[in-house]
C-alpha cells in the first residue's frame, strides 16, 4: 500500500506507540491521586506538556492545554473567547477554513453574529487587503488557518496577527494550526497570535488527542466544566497514554523538521512534476510557492475524482479528492470553489499528501501508474472533443 493521504490522518510512529503502551497497561493511576503510584503518570503529563511547549515555541507550559482533537481545540478557542467578549459581535474568518471552524462560525451567525468570510485568489492565497478592510474595533475574533488542508497553501498568519494587534489590540487571533503542525516550524512566542489549535493524528500521534496553545493574557471560558484538570479549563481525567503520545509525536516532528522541509518536499515536487509532465489533462490547482512541503492538489480535467480514487485504490494508492461524490454532500470542495477552480477540473481534483514515511519507490510507482489510469478513464468521459482540444494544446 502507498499511503498519500497524510492530511487526512497519519500512521502512528512506532516509538510513539511504545511510549504510550505502559500507560495503557500497568501505569494506570489517576495522575491527580496522592500516592506514589500516581507519580509516574503525573510526571509523564508534565513532560508531554513541556514537549508541546517547545513544539509550539511557547514560553511556558501553562500556555498548553490538552484536548481530544482539532475540532475541540477550535471550539474551545472560539467559544471560549466569544463567551468572554459578549459585547463584541463581529468575527473575521476565511472562506477556506476547515469545516470544524467554519461550522462553528455558521452557528454563531445564526445567533446573530456578523461574520466576514475573507476570500482567496486562484492560487488559494488569502486576500489580506480584504481582511484589513473588514477589521473593526468590535471585531471579537480574527480566525485564519495556518495552512489549508486541501491545497497546503500557507496563510501569512504572523503578519495578520501583527496587523490585527496594531489596529485593534483587543481583537483575539485564533489560528487553526492542524495542517501546519509538524510540516513547518511554528514559533508562537515570536508572534502576536493568541491561540493555535493542533491535532495529534496529523503528525503521527493517535486519533483522539489534540492541543491548544493560549497566550497567557487571553481569557477563555471552558468548554467542559467539571474538575480541576488542565487548570480548570478542560475538565475530565487526563487521557494519559494519548497525552504521552502527542508529546512524543511532537518531539519527533521537531527532530524531523529538516527532513520534512527538504526530503518530503523533494518527493512531493517530484510527484507533482511527474504527473503534470505525463498526464495531459492534469493541472496544478495552486501556485508552487507558499505551501506546506507535503501537499499537492492536482485537477484532472473531465474525469471525476471518486472514480480516480477507486482506481488508485485498486492498485493500492490512497489519496483523497475534493469531488462532491466522495463526501456524500453532493457539493464539491468549498476550498476549490472559493479559489474559482474551473468546473472542468473541480470534480476531478486529487490531493496527494506525503509524510516522512513516504519513499522514493512509492512516488515512482504513482508517477508510473497514473498515466495508465488516466488513459483508461479519459476514454469513458463524454467530453472527448474537449479532451482532444486539451491534448492538442498541450502538444501531446
Amino acid at each position, binding site marked *: 500500500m502507498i499511503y498519500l493521504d497524510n492530511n487526512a490522518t497519519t500512521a502512528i510512529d512506532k516509538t510513539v506507540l511504545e511510549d504510550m503502551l505502559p500507560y495503557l497497561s500497568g501505569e494506570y493511576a489517576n495522575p491527580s491521586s496522592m500516592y506514589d503510584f500516581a507519580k509516574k503518570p503525573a510526571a509523564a503529563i508534565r513532560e508531554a506538556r513541556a514537549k508541546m511547549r517547545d513544539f509550539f515555541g511557547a514560553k511556558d507550559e501553562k500556555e498548553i492545554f490538552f484536548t481530544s482533537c482539532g475540532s475541540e481545540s477550535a471550539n474551545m478557542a472560539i467559544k471560549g473567547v466569544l463567551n468572554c467578549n459578549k459585547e463584541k459581535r463581529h468575527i473575521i474568518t476565511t472562506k477556506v477554513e476547515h469545516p470544524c471552524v467554519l461550522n462553528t462560525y455558521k452557528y454563531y451567525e445564526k445567533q446573530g453574529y456578523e461574520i466576514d468570510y475573507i476570500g482567496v485568489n486562484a492560487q488559494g492565497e488569502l486576500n489580506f487587503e480584504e481582511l484589513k478592510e473588514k477589521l473593526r474595533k468590535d471585531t471579537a475574533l480574527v480566525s485564519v488557518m495556518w495552512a489549508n488542508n486541501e491545497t497546503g497553501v500557507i496563510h501569512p498568519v504572523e503578519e495578520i496577527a501583527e496587523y490585527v494587534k496594531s489596529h485593534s489590540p483587543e481583537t483575539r487571533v485564533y489560528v487553526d494550526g492542524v495542517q501546519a503542525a509538524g510540516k513547518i516550524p511554528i514559533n508562537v512566542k515570536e508572534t502576536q497570535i493568541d491561540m493555535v489549535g493542533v491535532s495529534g493524528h496529523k503528525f503521527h500521534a493517535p486519533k483522539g488527542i489534540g492541543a491548544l496553545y493560549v497566550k497567557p493574557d487571553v481569557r477563555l471560558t471552558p468548554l467542559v466544566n467539571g474538575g480541576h484538570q488542565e487548570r480548570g479549563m478542560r475538565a475530565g481525567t487526563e487521557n494519559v497514554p494519548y497525552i504521552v503520545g502527542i508529546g512524543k509525536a511532537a518531539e519527533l516532528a521537531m527532530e524531523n523538521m529538516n527532513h520534512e522541509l527538504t526530503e518530503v518536499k523533494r518527493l512531493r515536487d517530484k510527484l507533482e512534476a511527474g504527473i503534470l509532465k505525463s498526464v495531459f489533462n492534469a493541472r496544478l490547482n495552486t501556485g508552487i510557492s507558499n505551501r506546506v512541503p507535503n501537499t499537492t492538489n492536482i485537477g484532472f480535467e473531465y474525469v471525476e475524482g471518486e472514480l480516480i480514487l*477507486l482506481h488508485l485504490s485498486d492498485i493500492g494508492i490512497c489519496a483523497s479528492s475534493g469531488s462532491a461524490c466522495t463526501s456524500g454532500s453532493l457539493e464539491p470542495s468549498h476550498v476549490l470553489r472559493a479559489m474559482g477552480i474551473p468546473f*472542468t477540473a473541480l470534480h476531478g481534483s486529487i490531493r496527494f499528501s506525503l509524510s516522512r514515511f513516504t519513499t522514493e519507490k512509492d512516488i515512482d510507482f504513482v508517477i508510473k501508474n497514473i498515466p495508465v489510469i488516466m488513459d483508461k478513464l479519459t476514454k469513458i468521459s463524454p467530453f472527448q472533443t474537449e479532451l482532444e482540444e486539451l491534448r492538442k494544446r498541450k502538444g501531446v
Partner: protein
Amino acid sequence: MWDYSEKVLDHYRNPRNVGKIDNADLIGEAGSLACGDSLKLYLKLDGNKIADAKFQTFGCGSAVASSSILTEMIIGKTLDEAKKITNKDIAEELGGLPQEKMHCSVMGHEALEDALKKYYGGKYEENTPVETSDKIVCTCFNVTENQIWEAIKINNLKTVEEVTNYTKAGGACGRCKGLIKDIIDTYYKGLNKAEIKEPLTATQKILKISKVIEQQISPELQKDGGDIELIDIDGNKVKVKLTGMCQGCKNAQMTLKSFVESILRDKVDTNIEVEQV
C-alpha cells in the same frame, strides 16, 4: 468508503460498452459537467429493437457502473420493453446502491428516457402526470418538478433527504427543501398536480406575515410576558417592534432571529429578514 456491491465494483473496474456509436439512431443525455456527473447514451436500432448501446460517463464509480449495466440491460430489448426500465431496476441489477448514490441510477434512467423521448416524439411517458411541470425546483442541480415527481413515485420516497439522495435536488444550498417537501406532500395527498408555490403578491405576503405573527408568534411571546408589533414590510425585510417583557431583554436579538425570523421563513418566504425598529 462506500459499501459498493461486487457488481458495482466489477462494472466501474471493467465498464462494458464504453464509447460512442458514430451513426447512432438515438442519443440520450443527462446531467452536466458543472453538477459533477453527466452521461451520454447512444442507441443503434434494428427495427424497434435496441441492437447496440454504448455510453460515455463523467461521474463517480456508481455512475459509471449504472451506465455500464444499463447498456447491458437494454441491448436486445424492444423499445417498449426498454421504456419500462426504471432507476430502481438499474439499482437492483447492480445488487443495490448506497442510499446517497441512488441519484446515479436515476441519471441512467433519465438518459434512457431522453433517448426514447426522441423516438416517441416526446410523448411516451404515459404514466407521468401531464400536469406536472418542467419547472426547475433545484436551481443548483437543475432538477425539475417532473424528475422529483418521478423519483418519488418509482421509489416510494417519503422524505426530503431521500429525494436528495435520489435526485440531488436540495443537496447544495438547500433553499428548495421547502418546495421538495410540498411536492412530497402533494404526491401523497393523491393530487395529480404538484403545485409549485407561485410568488405571493405584495398584499398576499403582508396578509400572510401579519397572520403568522398574530396567530403563531405573538401567543408564544405573550407566554413570557412580551409581545410583538408588525411595523412595516419592505420586500423581504420585516420590521417589527418587541414590546412588553421582550423590550430590552438581552435575549431579544436571539428571539428575533432564531424564533420570529425562522417561523416566518418557514411559513412565508425563506428569504425573509426580520429587523427590530
